[in-house]
């Protein structure tokens, strides 16, 4: 059935279908896509929903109970936020080794949820207004 439909399709349509298949297969197997998949597997349902909608998610520090917002990115992407969701301080710490954004964000989540003091002790502070929301909302 599939073969019959496939053979009747014009050459251009077949080529288009093949290109789409190739794009999807390799697009979903890039390091970036793999990092996003791993991140999604390890987020809580609430964090995942927040990330899907806003491209950031919030975590609660295990030592102080402070809330941090982790934006999609690989540097200067963690903000401590107040009760109204306003950024009050930026904290920059990343895993070494040029990892993809999903991996970096997951390492930051685990660090803040399991060893907040250790993560903050090695982080560099930055003013939260350094980057606008637009900066973090670049397409995947």
């Amino acid at each position, binding site marked *: 059935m599939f073969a019959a439909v496939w053979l009747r399709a014009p050459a251009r349509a077949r080529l288009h279908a093949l290109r789409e298949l190739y794009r999807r297969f390799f697009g979903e197997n890039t390091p970036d*896509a793999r990092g996003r*998949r791993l991140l999604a597997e390890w987020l809580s349902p609430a964090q995942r929903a927040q990330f899907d909608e806003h491209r950031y998610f919030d975590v609660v520090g295990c030592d102080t109970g402070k809330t941090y917002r982790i934006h999609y990115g690989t540097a200067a992407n963690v903000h401590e936020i107040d009760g109204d969701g306003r950024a009050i301080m930026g904290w920059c710490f990343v*895993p070494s080794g040029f990892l993809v954004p999903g991996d970096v964000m997951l390492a930051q989540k685990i660090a803040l949820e399991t060893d907040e003091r250790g993560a903050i002790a090695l982080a560099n502070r930055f003013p939260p207004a350094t980057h606008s929301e637009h900066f973090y909302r670049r397409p995947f």
Partner: protein
Amino acid sequence: MATQIVMDQTGDTRHEFDPGNAEALARAERRFRELTGAGFTAALRNGPGEVTRIRSFDPTAQETLFYPRLVGG
């Protein structure tokens, strides 16, 4: 099957092993020691979104994640 997931520049590398196989378990424990000795942090997933750091090999862990040493950015 249990899995050890190591973050790297490809996204991640997964090592699957049968915890009931003593040789595979020993290899997994050796990998754990090598990675944590090199500065990687190991973490387990306890439930949806719940994570625990571990400092010694857990032979019952179904999924262990390793990420490289954190540095100030």
